[in-house]
């Protein structure tokens, strides 16, 4: 389990890193926390010609508020920094609550927020939450920049719309409207293990406690974070009762998702989890939104 030979670059600024990525093209690969990339290299599933290490690029480590009220997280911010950040806890408690589920404390001290999103693990919690929260990715390259909805960021397992010369520099979470709340629920076989199914929900209630808006995204039921539509239709305009939530969860399980069977569980068992977790997540989010 030793990696194949590779070149190694350690830029100190985004400019310099983007220059390198531009020169290297398909030969270059960004190294962030290394918690996913290094094991993949040790297994020789990844054999990059050159690594561009972002760990010295200080300008990518931050959490801050933007003028429009959204929250910005720099790509190299360590998972633990996000986990214990006060502003994140205030504005996006769902992220604070979910962070401890992302593997183990040890890997969160090295793993980065941007690395996690860019890695595009179909069982990743943070991509799914980001889709539900309507986050946007800020992407730069030597020749320009673009903002992409997280909904559009993922193409499939471990694949995003990022071009080889591009870098995810930050992610922006819009401020939640009033009477809104998010929640995340997952089922894992073991503490810290890969979740079998997870669901992130964001709900907004009107002043009569009816669902004004809802976003529901899943992990573990497909090849990328999956934003459900049918169950949302069931909710919108309904009063936020246990009945309505139950109906939506059923719909999600039966109509929205199309999970597969693997060694850990059957498709039907996963549907069952979708049902249970959706109900729990919606119930919690509604409770918080009413406060």
């Amino acid at each position, binding site marked *: *389990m*030793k*990696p*194949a*030979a590779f070149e190694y670059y350690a830029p100190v600024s985004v400019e310099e890193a983007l220059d390198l990525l531009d020169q290297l093209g398909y030969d270059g690969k960004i190294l962030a926390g290394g918690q996913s990339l290094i094991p993949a290299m040790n*297994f*020789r599933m990844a054999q990059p010609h050159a690594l561009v290490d972002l760990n010295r690029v200080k300008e990518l480590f931050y959490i801050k508020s933007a003028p429009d009220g959204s929250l910005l997280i720099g790509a190299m911010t360590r998972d633990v920094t996000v986990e214990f950040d006060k502003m994140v806890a205030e504005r996006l408690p769902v992220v604070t609550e979910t962070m401890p589920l992302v593997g183990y404390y040890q890997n969160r001290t090295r793993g980065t927020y941007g690395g996690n999103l860019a890695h595009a693990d179909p069982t990743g919690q943070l991509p799914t939450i980001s889709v539900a929260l309507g986050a946007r990715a800020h992407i730069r390259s030597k020749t320009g920049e673009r903002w992409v909805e997280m909904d559009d960021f993922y193409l499939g397992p471990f694949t995003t719309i990022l071009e080889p010369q591009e870098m995810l520099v930050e992610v922006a979470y819009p401020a939640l409207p009033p009477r809104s709340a998010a929640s995340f629920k997952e*089922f894992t*076989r*073991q*503490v*810290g*293990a*890969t979740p079998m199914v997870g669901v992130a929900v964001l709900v907004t209630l009107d002043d009569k406690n009816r669902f004004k808006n809802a976003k529901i995204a899943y992990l573990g039921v497909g090849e990328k974070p999956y934003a459900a539509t049918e169950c949302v239709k069931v909710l919108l305009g309904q009063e936020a009762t246990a009945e309505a939530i139950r109906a939506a969860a059923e719909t999600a399980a039966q109509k929205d998702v199309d999970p597969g069977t693997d*060694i*850990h*569980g*059957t498709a*039907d*068992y996963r549907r*069952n*989890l979708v049902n*249970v977790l959706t109900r729990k997540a919606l119930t919690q989010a509604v409770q918080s939104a009413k406060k």
Partner: protein
Amino acid sequence: MTTEVKTKVIGKSVWRNEDPRLLTGMAQFVDDIELPGMLHAAFYRSDYAHARIKSIDVSAARARPGVVAVYTAEDFGDYWHVGPLQVPPPLAIKGAQFNARPLVPIAKDKVRYSGEPLAVVLAESRYIAEDALADIYADLEPLPAVTDMEKALEPGAPLVHDDLGTNLAADVYQQVGDYEAAKAKADVVIARRFFKDRCAGGAMENRGIVCAWDEKAQKMTVWCGTQAPIPMRNAIAKNLGLSEDQVRLVIPFIGGGFGPKVMTSMPDDVLLPWLSRKLNRPIKWIEDRRENFLATTSERDQIHYAEIALTKDGKILGVKDVFYHNTGAYDPYGMTVPLNTQTHTLGQYDVPNFYTQIKMVFTNKMVVTPVRGAGRNYGVFVMERLMDLAAKELKMDPVEIRMKNLIQPHQLPYKTGIIGQDFVENVLDSGDYPASLKKAVEMIGYEKFVKEEQPRLRAEGKWVGIGVVNFVEGTAVGPYEGARVTVGNNGKVVVLTGCSTQGQAHFTTFAQLVAEQLGVDVKDVHVTTGDTDQFHWGAGTFASRGITVAGSAVYAAATKVRAKALSLASKLLETPEEELELADGVVRVADLPSKFIPLGELAMKANPTRGTIEPGVEPGLEATAYYAPPHGATGYGTNAIILEVDKETFDVKIRRFVFVHDCGTVVNPMVAEAQIHGGVQMGIGTAFFEQLVYDDNGQLLNASFQDYLMPKATDMPMKMELGHLSVPSPLNPLGLKGLGEAGAIPPPAAYAQAIENAIHDVDFEILDMPLNPSRLYELVKAARKK
């Protein structure tokens, strides 16, 4: 009967001598060994489970800078040889059929399991060695693979060993009484098919070896993590045509064994010492986790067709069990594992008629050899399930039916009539089975739970259930172990034995046995368990035999040294032996402690540089002793658990975990408890987490810890409630019995009973293991549909 031993150090939870080094990172493991000029090996392995080898092109690999050599089966020439069989065939059992197909060191003509090595690369670094693996091209013609034991025996099934004409590796039956006659008289007969899948023997440290040929000294030194240092040394000497004393095997610290490290005929064992001599360079190979999953050895999968015949009041008349045992592609370890299943099926129960038949089958899966529990747990699972099914049918309480059928203390020693892995009749030597069951039932509060708590929890809508199962653990089999105990001139004591340690605390427990006899501090006893230049007799650490077999030898050697010390001190102190005592590192007059002689000084006097020693007296304060049991000593116990099943996710949580066991005299309770804890962790693994999943093509689908779920600390019971019984074994002076595997044996059976009991409102049966939430969900769903 054994006399009650009054002890000072034995029976105390002495802190472990090995821990300071382990905890401060100062312990040496195989991978810590670096030698000048050392080469690194990497194996090129087959992706197919079954294929004909057409050709292997290693020319590009050989040409890569930094690569020193690449060998395929052909390149080994005459050295390429089959086997040997590590455990002899079961000739002691009448009518036993056994087809020996021991391991081949590197595949020739044909590949029989996925991960079987096809070539070995030797390079200046492990990086380069792995680079070179990608340069190798093997032209393999895939053949249909066979993984299912029953299908493997159907006519026309692909043959794993073509020359054999069948995939039947062995057919062995044993019987006591007449099952069919018993069945004819029975009120109730219950028959089922059971399946239990295989698990890894995943130690924290994988296999590894460093070997160094010294051309000038004409000597081979090997460092590795084997559980069997002496057999390994002897095997290497035989392979290389050297005399045994030309091979030195040194065992550094080992990060767990659990069974697979008892192998001495694996590709690395056979090929690398030869290559080291041939190339005259030291070689290191450290197995990686993926290789360990694919191609070390693992534990058994078995299918049982079992039945039980009873009277209507729940007395067992007979049991019949015909089972398939999947040995994988080869059978280098003979029939140890399925024979263990045969000897453990009836467990603690008095069953007059028993028929048990093994059909051992070759398939295109990884080779099966013992892993902690080693087949015992499979017999126990089948029998305990039969008892549960019978209880249900007869509307009896599961505890009651068990109590009714236990072998009573006065029946011990109880000859079972079944020949075991050690080829002698299995004898249940000592114990009190009813006491074990009673204790477990009391500890878990069975009555109160069933009558009060469970109804209340059920009313709250919870699925909470209880399971109580019994087991025996055959331990401490022969042939023998030996030890040498020497008092040094500094008063410290050295113990040498060939029974290596993989974490079981031999450095402490063996030291305690010596300290007891010699009156020295446990810390002043230094134990070396694996250096064949220092001690070269013994079989190794397996079958829960360390403390009983090697420990008894250590104790006997220490007893001899004590006698020598007393005899010499008596002369020097001019005091009769009866008036002397050994304590605080000296021999002294018991009533006049100021009159003493330190042990170190005595050691010097026992080994004078001039003058004479008395005729018939051997020099030094040193003695060697051996212990050979007539047959194994049998531990036993009861596992009682309370589980809660989540009604929606079907996840299972442990609410209570009670484990009662008897290992005879306990040398170090803390160590004994830790052995139980570790065993239980594996037992819980095989019940609910661990499973090597193969597809129909013989591909392992979960060859990493991401997909192979090892139980973690957070999956263990919050509290382990252990109950100790101590009925000494009559087989050795201290009354010892093993316990290393106990914890791994009963949990699957306990889980099955407790889960069925929890999901009381659905009529279903758990016949297969391991379970997981999805499987449980599907079982319940299917039962509800009916």
